[in-house]
């Protein structure tokens, strides 16, 4: 039997609840839904054929290719780095551990433009390393290597950040058990550690990939904006837009928006299906 007059002490009255929900929905519509709609309406405003010919344009194709290439290098690199870093931090005790964790977070707190600039200063024409590398036939700044470096820098916290709390929570018990049963280090990692963290790892890779493909600031500084050569998708969008090529700009932008939506869907699936195995990360 429910008492009509009883009110749950932590809940609000119906009007307050509805007002809050409406405020959030209105905000989301204005700042998320509306821009997303604009991207697709602008991309398709001259029809399907204009959309696809904008995407088929050689500079656009090369931008898509370069973005995929950069992600294909940066994401595996950060996967390996993230695994190694979180393994070291979660399973061993050493001095300077807290400092290392802070360092891993650095790209989150530094403006991407600054991180791009650092690479220009390190490898540019007026630096020490730049002319040396160039004399050996390696151009870093205003070329693909610079873009890859800047992308790796900006995206390296994602996998590590995802795995450190997860591995810390799981501890070393399972690995000890595997080793006491005769497994070597590699077998313990492959059969025990990896299955325990696989969903967290996938989640981290997903976020890392989304950022690697969408990164603008750092890449913009090191790229040099050479059409057909060093433009990634986000940079290409900007150039087309500045050329008043609205359909072209929004067509490429729509691909990035689709990537974002896909990431969101996969992320939601991971969270609902394997929430408990990602639980350590949900507390953060």
């Amino acid at each position, binding site marked *: 039997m429910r008492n009509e007059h009883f009110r749950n002490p932590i809940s609000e009255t119906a009007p307050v609840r509805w007002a809050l929900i409406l405020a959030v929905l209105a905000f989301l519509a204005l700042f998320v839904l509306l821009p997303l709609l604009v991207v697709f309406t602008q991309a398709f405003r001259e029809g399907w054929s204009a959309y696809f010919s904008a995407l088929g344009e050689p500079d656009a194709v090369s931008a898509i290719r370069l973005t995929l290439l950069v992600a294909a290098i940066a994401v595996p690199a950060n996967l390996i780095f993230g695994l190694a870093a979180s393994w070291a931090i979660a399973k061993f005790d050493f001095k300077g551990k807290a400092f290392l964790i802070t360092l891993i977070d650095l790209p989150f707190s530094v403006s991407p433009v600054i991180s791009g600039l650092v690479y220009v200063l390190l490898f540019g024409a007026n630096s020490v390393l730049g002319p040396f590398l160039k004399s050996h036939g390696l151009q870093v700044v205003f070329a693909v290597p610079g873009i890859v470096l800047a992308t790796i820098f900006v995206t390296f916290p994602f996998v590590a950040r995802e795995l450190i709390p997860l591995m810390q929570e799981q501890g070393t*018990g*399972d690995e*000890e*058990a*595997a*080793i*006491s*049963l*005769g*497994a*070597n280090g590699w*077998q313990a990692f492959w*059969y*025990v550690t990896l*299955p*325990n963290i696989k969903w967290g790892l996938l989640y981290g890779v997903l976020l890392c990939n989304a950022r690697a493909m969408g990164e603008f600031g750092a890449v913009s500084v090191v790229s040099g904006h050479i059409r057909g050569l060093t433009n990634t998708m986000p940079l290409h969008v900007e150039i087309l837009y500045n050329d008043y090529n609205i359909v072209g700009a929004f067509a490429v932008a729509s691909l990035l928006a689709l990537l974002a939506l896909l990431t969101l869907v996969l992320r939601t699936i991971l969270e609902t299906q394997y929430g408990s195995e990602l639980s350590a990360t949900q507390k953060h």
Partner: protein
Amino acid sequence: MEIRVEKIRKEFDLYPALHDVSLKIESGELIALLGPSGSGKTTLLRLIAGLEQPTLGRIFFGEEDASYKTVQERNVGFVFQHYALFRHMNVAQNVAFGLTVRPRHQRPPKAEIRRRALELLDMMQLTGLEKRFPNQLSGGQRQRVALARAMAIEPRVLLLDEPFGALDAKVRKELRRWLREFHDRTGHTTVFVTHDQEEALELADRVVVMSQGKIEQVGSSDDVYDRPNSPFVFSFIGESANLPVSVIDGTVHFHGQSTGLAAQRDGEAHLFFRPQDVSLVEEGPGLSGPVTSSRRLAGTRIAEVELGSAKSPCHVEIEVPLDASVSNGTTLAFRPTRWKLFY
């Protein structure tokens, strides 16, 4: 497999966890390492397993010096406190793990691995559960899967860390009896760690009582209970009372009064006795004081008696006959019948 631990010292960050511990475990023995938390019992077990490296000292498996051998080389079956079952593998895969990770030339064929896993599960009374995952098992079942997994590698010794710690009281009792039977059937040298004295006394052939990184006493249940060799063992195992006394002219005195107990050596000492080892006395020397509380405990009655002066009272608990009148405030006089002095 006989195990000898010789003058083992283990330091964690310069803080000693074990001080020069020596212990000999006979082949086929069931040994309990018993002590409060922080006594070093788990560290000793992990050192025997090879999960920790000793700072100093040696460990022998039979005649072979195993001190610096890896866990894998020592071939021990280790059952972890929280079982550490692999949560993404089913029961059969868990049990078979030790065999499947063997190098190719030592690995039995798949069918043989499966047969051995099922045989072990049968022995652990887990038949029919081989397809379940660890989170679908009860605590007692998980414990037995962990044991089956450890046995699958045909270990030379079996080491268990708080094997019953995470189980409820009833399951704990059942498994305790079951482990004893299992040990008697297989004859493995078995060492287990526990903080539960009842468990240690009931289950083990010999109990190793540890405190603050040292072994206090090694002996059978009767030895450590009836003949404790240190104040720690006396107070840690079973109930006991402890009084500061002085021995004058061969008689034990408490607060200047003779207790009527005779001792060899004069000097300050501590008198230990158990609640049940006393008899009430009508007259003559003894310990006496007012009853401050009493309670009925199944077949006996326990009275708490205040001894000594009002300024520095000593409260001791003694067993009294059920028909004794022990309302609060009545004075009881008694004398320990079995007791021990530590100088």
